[in-house]
């Protein structure tokens, strides 16, 4: 039999708790962001259009579908189902969103990211690319932690 030989260190009991917090914070942010966008389908499509990255048909699909992807990932994180796989998907999504904001900033467009509803063009003085990117990097850090330490307390996986 393989037995736990290492003493149950303090670290071992802390890590799953940190993972639980990471999981729930990421879940809350995704569910809030998705819901706020899903309320307003035309606004959501307009927010995607403002990025000027994808053709018109795709703008509609992303504007309508992305909020539900976020809600779905958020619900899975909240339940703690397949945490590592969901964390990988979340990290990919966050990287894509960060890349989109970086591309907007680089092209000199002035828009609101529409991350939590709203979005679309804004006056140049009202862009917040730096804080939007920093916030998404913070979320990416949480997703990264969950890829590394997917086991957490109060999850369906355990």
């Amino acid at each position: 039999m393989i037995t736990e030989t290492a003493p149950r260190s303090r670290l071992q009991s802390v890590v799953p708790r940190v993972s639980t917090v990471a999981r729930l914070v990421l879940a809350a942010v995704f569910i809030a962001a998705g819901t706020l966008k899903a309320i307003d389908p035309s606004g959501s499509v307009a927010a995607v259009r403002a990025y000027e990255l994808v053709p018109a048909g795709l703008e509609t699909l992303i504007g309508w579908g992305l909020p539900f992807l976020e809600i779905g990932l958020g619900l899975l994180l909240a339940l703690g189902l397949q945490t590592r796989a969901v964390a990988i998907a979340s990290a990919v999504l966050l990287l894509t969103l960060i890349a989109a904001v970086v591309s907007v900033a680089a092209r000199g467009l002035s828009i609101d990211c529409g991350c939590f509803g709203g979005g679309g063009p804004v006056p140049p003085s009202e862009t917040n690319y730096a804080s939007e990117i920093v916030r998404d990097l913070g979320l990416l850090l949480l997703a990264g932690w969950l890829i590394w330490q997917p086991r957490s307390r109060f999850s369906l996986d355990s």
Partner: protein
Amino acid sequence: MTSSARRAREQARQRAAAAAKRQRQRRIVLLVVVISLVVLIGGGIAFQAWRTLRAPSAAPTTGSPSLTPVAVTEGKPIVLGTAEAPVKLSLYEDFHCPHCAEFEEEYGPVLSDAQDSGKAALEVYPMSFIDAGSAAAANAMACAAEAGFGSQYYQGLFANHTLQWNDDQLIELAKQITPVPGEAFETCVTSRGHAGWVDSINAAADAKGINSTPTMFLDGTRLDLASLTPEALQTKIEEAATTR
């Protein structure tokens, strides 16, 4: 072979079988998760398509159904209610702005009362910064005002604010209000008869520095909508009407 070696091999076999079973279960769970996610996203897209492309629901029939044609003048708002009313309420809204729809739901009854009682006239500046549907709806709003059912059309547009506002939907909404909106109205909608006026309203709002909707002025004074309540608005309207 000793019996203990046999036992050890038997245990190893069982462990391997248990591990394989766990692996299979994990794969099934992952598959279920992926399928659920795909169904959720597909269902979400279908739901939004329905919310956007369905026919408008019946427009509310509050407000006087008197068909009084309203003039549409470049750069000037559409006036709903009696033009001689003592109080002027100026409203800057986009027909696709969700906050504007919420605002209408909350304050609509007070605004209708004020129009019906002749205390206030509503000056509507329909801005169109969200999308093409905003502009199409603003144009149709002008067409409806000209045809004489502006008040009801205005309420109908906000009651159905998630719609895309293609020409069919804009004409269908008019049919919910008046069985025969008329050839002139339909042509006005499909040919964007008031496109110039729509541009002039956006320019007028820009010139006034309006950068968020809804924005409301009572006799030229901007009201702070964050702290306003429908009751407080009613009081303000009545006070302004009596001091006139």
